[in-house]
């Protein structure tokens, strides 16, 4: 079905939104909207850790101090939320997931990110490796605010932003794919914004 015309609708085209950087159905915002399904957790740093568990030769664990001693990368990326906003040129400080997975032996092909508050999201392991994903603790050079996922959140900018878990506490590697929180609630299992994979069946 070709789209029907909305009588009198012109829209406000944005000069600052290059089409090769804004996926279909998205619009550019300068704000940083907050989306999450429950209360914002506030885990004290001395009780925080990040673990890699599941199908691995040996589970890994970092305390906050150990995590912050790892090599830092600063990345500038565009992020795309399934609720339609995209934000261009966001600047994050974090640790590459490649660094966290360094030396981890696994035959797993899938991973579930898990968080304080019970949130989970799943994706193929290869979407976290090769310089595509980070565990971010800073935004614009400042500590990441709790409502945006601090103390540390996942950053997987090539997928819709629900695939970047806030308040991240670990990765569970597995041989089989296990749909996470939104993925069992009507949202697409993979979530590629360029193919507009928003919902089941997209």
């Amino acid at each position: 079905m070709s789209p029907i015309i909305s009588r009198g609708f012109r829209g406000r085209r944005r000069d600052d939104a290059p089409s090769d950087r804004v996926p279909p159905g998205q619009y550019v915002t300068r704000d940083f909207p907050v989306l999450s399904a429950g209360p914002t957790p506030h885990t004290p740093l001395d009780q925080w850790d990040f673990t890699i568990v599941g199908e691995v030769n040996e589970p890994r664990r970092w305390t906050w101090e150990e995590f912050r001693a790892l090599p830092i990368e600063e990345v500038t990326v565009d992020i795309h939320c399934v609720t339609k906003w995209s934000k261009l040129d966001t600047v994050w400080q974090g640790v590459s997931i490649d660094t966290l997975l360094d030396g981890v032996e696994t035959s797993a092909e899938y991973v579930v990110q898990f968080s304080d508050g019970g949130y989970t999201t799943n994706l193929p392991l290869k979407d976290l490796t090769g310089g595509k994903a980070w565990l971010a603790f800073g935004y614009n050079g400042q500590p990441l605010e709790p409502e945006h996922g601090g103390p540390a959140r996942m950053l997987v900018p090539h997928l819709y932003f629900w695939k970047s878990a806030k308040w991240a506490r670990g990765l569970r590697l597995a041989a089989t794919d296990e749909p996470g929180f939104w993925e069992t609630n009507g949202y697409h299992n993979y979530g590629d914004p360029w193919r507009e994979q928003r919902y089941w069946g997209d």
Partner: protein
Amino acid sequence: MAGTAVLGRLTWQVAKVIDLVAETPRVKTIAFEVPGWPGHRAGQHVDVRLTAEDGYQSERSYSIASAPDGTRVELTVERIDDGEVSPYLADELEPGDQIELRGPIGGYFVWEPLQGGPILLLAGGSGVVPLMAMVRLRAAARSDADMRLLYSSRGWEDVIYREELERLNRDGLTVVHTLTRSQPPGWTGYARRVDFEMLSEVGPGPQERPHIYVCGPTPFVEAAAEALVKLGHEPQTIKAERFGPTGG
């Protein structure tokens, strides 16, 4: 937790405007006829797509305001002055106009009569919209569940669904308003932002394990959810939807 009943792809459907109601100076309810609408659950939303004559398109998400009612779907839209879609929906649409929408979307922020109560709904401004679908569904289903709506507005003239809420405020539904910026003469209700003390007075308490739904602007949701946790409610019982000034 339950998934949605969505099985196939959510396709774009033509929605024809059949009725428009000005709720407040900034807020309008638009009733659509959507042939083939599969039905929805209270709390779900839709994606709306507008297409200009030259093919330019814009999409936004809006909560469904109505209880399930055949092929009729009501959206309540707050006009964001510098927005792209909401001024068109709120100011330009007339009966007979057509837009496109797809849905229903979202399987988490939903309430079903079978879940029973007690239920605590916390609304900030137009965050009342998906909660109103729950209020209306409760009435339509003749549920006797204890449902309480604490609704924060700037002033009395900003209260969406005011008369309908007054009418439904009985038989186990309790509506409590707080007016944060201006109050009409003689106002004896709450006149401040939702806080710990207000939540403990409105109840139900944590020991009753209410299903809690919070919807509003981010600062409202953050403050309300934090106060609820401080009161002793389990974070897992608190479902939140936040919206920010996203230019919608």
